[in-house]
């Protein structure tokens, strides 16, 4: 299994294949879609998951979010969210970048 323990900052998170992530203009929000269900994401969750494309490491995502939210105090929140998203099965991890 190429699914290293989450939150090694050098690993690459991406949306798990069971889920589809998209912007819904009607709801003015990002959503996660899965068989017969939907989660409407708040702004922060949407901004984090938007970056989980398998091409950026957790480290790069956090660095990018520090700029987006103009704050250096977001690391713990982002890590906590990624941990819970991983345990919910929304996000999976790879050692390297997805081509």
């Amino acid at each position, binding site marked *: 299994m190429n699914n290293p323990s989450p939150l090694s900052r050098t690993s690459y998170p991406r949306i798990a294949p*069971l889920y*589809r992530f998209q912007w*819904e203009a*009607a709801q003015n929000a990002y*959503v996660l*879609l899965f*068989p*017969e269900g939907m989660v409407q994401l708040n702004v922060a969750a949407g901004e984090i998951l938007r970056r989980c494309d398998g091409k950026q490491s957790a480290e790069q995502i956090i660095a990018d979010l520090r700029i987006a939210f103009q704050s250096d105090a977001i690391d713990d929140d982002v890590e906590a969210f990624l941990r819970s998203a991983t345990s919910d*099965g929304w996000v999976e991890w790879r050692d390297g970048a997805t081509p």
Partner: protein
Amino acid sequence: MNAALNPAPMPLWMVAELTYRCPLHCAFCSNPVDFAKVESELSTEEWFRVFAEARALGAVQLGLTGGEPLSRPDLELLVAEAHRLGFYTNLITSGVGLNETRMRALKDAGLDHVQLSFQDSTRELNDFLSSTRTFDLKRRVATLIKGHGFPMVMNCVIHRLNIDHVDRIIDLALEIGAEYLELANTQFYGWADLNRAQLLPTREQLERSEAVVAGYRQRIGKQLRILYVISDLYETRPKRCMNGWGTTFMVVAPDGLVMPCHAARMLPGIDLPSARNTSLQQIWRDSPAFNRFRGDQWMPEPCRSCPEKAKDLGGCRCQAFLLTGDVGATDPVCDKSPLHGRVLQIVNGPRPVAPAVERPLVFRTPENSRRLIADTAEP
């Protein structure tokens, strides 16, 4: 789906009943018993327009069902258009008619997920309940679905004749690699209502099965998520009707009638609008049918003054009609309803000892449907 997040109701979920044609004849089908009346199905182009209008209203989940949706030769075109519009597309199928060629075409069209129905874990009962020989075929289709990398929901309608096999049904779901298992106890509308005496499980059966499911959940963790829905008749509080009438769901029937729930076609005094001559926007926002049970102004007592009214919104309209004769009554599943005794009479009353032998099941066939239509026509 959390509709409470949305200030104005939005039909997040659209169910497209593409056809009433079906190779199966399940005795618990929720289709209307007079489905044989419906002859003219929406065309490919009409469905395209319906999808686009629904998407513009905010619909994002699309259930493609029937009948058997694979009976439509244009299913792949419909999936491709729905995908292009940004829907998450769910194919809800018996598996009959799904071969490698169609599976690949559906994948290429952008299909997101397949829900495959089984009627039981055994060939004998599966084939008996659906009145077909389909068990082996379904096993092959499950392999095909997983082979193409689709998430798969296995669905099995539960009732008196198969509820004692719940453990083996869960084993089957694990074996075929389903991500979700829906064990949906029969709700008694349509054909199931005709066969209620034979299909309603006993309280003892229900309690045993709940213990079995709880045991499995503990043991297997997250590899398979089991949704277990018990029959409303064994509850003392009703469920919201489709998450609230006209709040989240829109069902479009094969002939274009637009309904707040699957079974609304049988409700008297509700003039269902048609997508053939009215836009979905007008139907959703302005039609008397969709506004009839929105909010709480329509509620009678004991709902009107009930502190729980916002939770269940008065319950299921179809159940209220079938059990009380009044579509606007409190759902009698609620033990505050003055007519709750009717529900108790059903669940505690005498039952056939050998259900399907003493009283044969009425299978969902066009012949039976036509006979039932004729029976209603001659009083």
